[in-house]
């Protein structure tokens, strides 16, 4: 008899714990994205390789895939740009509704080394933007991303860049939709993107 009551109490406790856990999962899953990012419209004003100033208004009606990187980056940046290239190929005709942007966080050196040739080597649709220090800082702050120049005597030109390696998806009206963490395969990006187009 006492054992049975103990069992009931234990079962009840387990039930409460399960419900609490479930609620926790639901709320922790939802809260940060839908509430915090609802009306977040990151912006930028940066020159392309021809020196034309580009802003989100130029791409109104298109989805943007935005990556902050630098061309002197042989490991992380090519990996992400290769995924973006794959996405653009796999989109077929729908690719015209998507504009990939590569925003340089190392603009002075990237312009010297040649920015457009670098992005074109991955996919002709990727548009490279490189501003001055202030324009770059402003774009990064608007996207809430981090980049930093770190002095390193052993690195080419004596410095390295650290940066946020995620890929950002911006909607046709300029709303921040989501980010794809570094290493997200092209197939996963495509699966998320296609129903939106």
């Amino acid at each position, binding site marked *: 008899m006492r054992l049975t009551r103990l069992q009931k109490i234990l079962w009840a406790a387990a039930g409460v714990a399960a419900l609490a856990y479930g609620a926790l999962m639901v709320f922790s899953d939802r809260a940060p994205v839908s509430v915090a990012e609802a009306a977040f419209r990151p912006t930028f004003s940066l020159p392309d390789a021809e020196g034309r100033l580009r802003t989100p208004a130029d791409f109104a009606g298109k989805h943007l895939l935005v990556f902050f990187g630098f*061309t*002197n980056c*042989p*490991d*992380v940046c*090519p*990996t992400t*740009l*290769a995924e973006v*290239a*794959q996405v653009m190929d796999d989109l077929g005709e729908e690719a015209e509704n998507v504009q990939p942007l590569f925003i340089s966080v190392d603009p002075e050196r990237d312009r010297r*080394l*040649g920015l457009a*040739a*670098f992005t074109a*080597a*991955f996919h002709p649709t990727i548009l490279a933007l490189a501003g001055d220090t202030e324009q770059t800082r402003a774009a990064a702050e608007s996207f809430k991303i*981090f980049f*930093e120049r*770190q002095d*390193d005597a*052993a*690195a*080419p030109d004596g410095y*390295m860049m*650290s*940066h*946020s*390696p*995620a890929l950002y998806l911006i909607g046709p009206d300029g709303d921040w939709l989501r980010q794809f963490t*570094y*290493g997200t395969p092209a197939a996963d990006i495509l699966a998320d993107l296609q129903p939106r187009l």
Partner: protein
Amino acid sequence: MKRVILATLVVFAAMPALACETVRVGDIEVEHAWSRATIGADRPGVVYLSIRNTGSTDDALIGVATPIAGMPMLHETVVSDGIASMPHTMSMPVPAGQTAALAPGGFHGMLMGLTQALKKGDSFPLTLTFETAGDVTVTVEVLGMGAKEAECPNAQP
């Protein structure tokens, strides 16, 4: 004419095999060494490969050298708190009985001071120095800029 075609076929068939072959030194086996093409020689190149330690003693990769780069180094891409950086690293552990890899987004050979642009289809020698097993030279195959993994049968990234 027929002989020329045949010879061409042999050369093309042999090239990927060089980079895909397994090279051994002591208990260490190295395979699938590949790199990405570069535009010009002003940006650093990269090297990826797979290392298996078949022995019962831990080893470590402590250096890389190649005639095509003035300053080759081991780097490790670290993504922490959403920030990627790639510090120079002194060694990559290759524990006994395990496989370790230079792979995109992790440890990689960083080839600074390239003496020439790396073109798709080229290959170059790379000498790896292991703490215990010593030196071994592998052939690195240069793939396209957007390559994600070695182009070998059963390749691992």
